[in-house]
């Protein structure tokens, strides 16, 4: 069995007992990347020399039992800034951008002696659900190379699903961790808003963005969240709440847990196999001793509309910083300063990014603010209250992560609306700020993975992990691997 087939704890034990070294694991990682990258295309930039140097240093220092992550490779989404390593957000705008500082999550990764191996492909500025809007390349779904890996964290998901890395970081603004995790049959968690510092995450929609881990198992996911969580003075929206050990409740015991299933999440429009798999998962949870009952999130049907106003408005403001002056792409085709702004932005941004900037600028423009931005913010309050009401009586909310399995490359690119509607089950969770996970719960007739979504109370990722882990222990979906 390949080294990379093992989970974090198994590799950690081998490292501690010195049966293998961090250099061995890191080498195996780059070998696997070389073997599969031409087919999958997860990475924009590899950082092999630096990674091997880190591994050597960690081996020299020695790996002890108190840090399960030490000496193990991780992939990083290319919208997380890395000091000295090109960070593009998959945009022509940042094609040659080399940051001069590390994001807070990167500092935490280095503190934990983990080894970043490179930067992962994504939709441009995280705007998209298929990783097709990347300026650089298309990433393929390892389960079927004709299908998208989901997005925007498609590179982060494909790298884990294809066994290139054990773990990766993604970001989730409307489903960008959970939907690709669902499409590629792995575990992806969006933490509670404020749980993980956004300092150094290239901003898309600041009131929605969160960084989170993608892994093959629930326990591995909890280990990574342990390492990256916590208050950060550099992020004014990071929360000053204590960080528990997210592995503490992984006992397999969920007797008495109360789970609500929103009837809106199992309504028309779901691919039949997705619905079947989720209904089976509900039976599994009942067998494990949980109480599962129908609940309602009546305003969730408005989530997509609210999201596209709020996320695009925030994006239009955040992306105004890209003016061609201080960093990023500058057009050569200019005669005056105004040209620098307009031509740099028009040539540097792709179509989907421009579409969102336009929508956001329109929603915030004079005369339309009340009808669009304010209205969306009010309906957001109602969506948030829906969740609060359900969580008065339930520990978790369960549903599908996406209405369908992975779709074909190019299938939805020309129709933004159908692409946007694919996020209908994940978006409300970002709008309300709650944590949510996608875990494997089945396969469709074509052999494509199906994801189960579990949503928790604010800052209660521990209970999500508890229930996700119990399901994983009771099923074998997470053990299936794509043929590459």
């Amino acid at each position, binding site marked *: 069995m390949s080294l990379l087939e093992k989970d974090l704890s198994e590799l950690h034990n081998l490292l501690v007992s010195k049966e293998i070294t961090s250099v061995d694991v890191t080498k195996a990682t780059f070998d696997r990347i070389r073997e599969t990258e031409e087919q999958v295309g997860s990475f924009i930039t590899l950082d092999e020399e630096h990674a091997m140097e880190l591994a050597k240093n960690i081996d020299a220092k020695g790996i002890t039992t108190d840090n399960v992550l030490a000496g193990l490779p991780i992939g990083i989404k290319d919208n997380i800034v890395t000091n000295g390593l090109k960070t593009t957000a998959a945009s022509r705008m940042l094609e040659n*951008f*080399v940051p*001069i*500082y590390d994001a807070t999550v990167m500092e935490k990764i280095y503190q934990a002696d983990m080894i970043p191996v490179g930067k992962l492909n994504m939709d441009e500025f995280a705007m998209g659900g298929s990783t097709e809007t990347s300026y650089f390349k298309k990433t393929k779904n390892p389960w079927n190379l004709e299908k998208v890996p989901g997005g925007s964290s498609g590179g982060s998901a494909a790298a884990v699903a294809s066994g290139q890395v054990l773990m990766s970081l993604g970001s989730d603004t409307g489903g960008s961790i959970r939907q690709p995790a669902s499409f590629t049959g792995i575990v992806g968690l969006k933490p509670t*808003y*404020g749980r993980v510092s956004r300092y150094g995450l290239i901003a898309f929609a600041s*009131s929605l963005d969160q960084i989170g881990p993608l892994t093959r198992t629930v326990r591995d996911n909890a280990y990574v969240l342990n390492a990256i969580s916590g208050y950060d*003075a550099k992020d004014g*929206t990071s*929360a000053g709440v204590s960080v528990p050990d997210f592995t503490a409740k992984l006992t397999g015991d969920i007797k008495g847990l109360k789970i609500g299933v929103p009837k809106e999440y199992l309504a028309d429009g779901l691919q039949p196999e997705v619905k079947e798999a989720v209904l089976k998962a509900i039976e599994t949870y009942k067998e494990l001793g949980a109480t599962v009952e129908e609940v309602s999130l009546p*305003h969730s049907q*408005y989530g*997509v*509309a*609210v999201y*596209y106003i709020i996320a695009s408005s925030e994006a*239009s403001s955040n992306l*105004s910083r890209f*003016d*061609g*002056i*201080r*960093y*990023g792409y*500058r057009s050569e085709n*200019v*005669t*005056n*300063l*105004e*040209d620098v702004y*307009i*031509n740099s*932005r*028009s040539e540097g*941004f792709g179509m989907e990014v*421009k*579409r969102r*900037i*336009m*929508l956001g*600028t*329109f929603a915030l*423009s004079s005369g339309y603010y009340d009808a669009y931005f*304010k*209205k969306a*913010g*009010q*309906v*957001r*309050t*109602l969506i*948030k209250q829906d969740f609060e009401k359900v969580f008065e009586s339930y520990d978790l909310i369960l549903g599908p992560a996406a209405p369908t399995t992975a779709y074909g490359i190019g299938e939805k690119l020309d129709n*933004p*609306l159908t692409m*946007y509607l694919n996020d209908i089950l994940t978006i409300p969770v970002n*709008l*309300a*700020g709650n944590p949510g996970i996608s875990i494997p719960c089945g396969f469709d007739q074509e052999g494509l993975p199906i994801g189960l979504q579990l949503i928790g109370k*604010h800052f209660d990722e521990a209970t999500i992990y508890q229930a996700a882990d119990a399901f994983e222990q009771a099923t074998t979906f997470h053990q299936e691997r794509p043929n590459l």
Partner: protein
Amino acid sequence: MAINEEQVKHVAKLAKLSFKEEEISQFTEKLDQIIQMVETLEQVDTTGVPITTHVLDTVNAFREDQAEEGTDRDQLMKNVPTSQDGFIKVPAIMDNGEAGA
């Protein structure tokens, strides 16, 4: 409400983006579809409902007003496309090549 090409051109100006004529008509059509979807929000009664712009109870994040070391200037200039004498160099503000006052 349907959005028209004139409005799209106005918004493009605000956003400092330029589009070819055929792109304007494509944009108008796609934006119009999205805006129609967004207008389903009119069905929701939001009388007296406060607006949510932030999901946590945090009000303001203050820190002590203490001087800290800033970022090195040479470092900051590393990603600047063109510079001269430690300043960022940009084209003239006026069309005729003369610097503005």
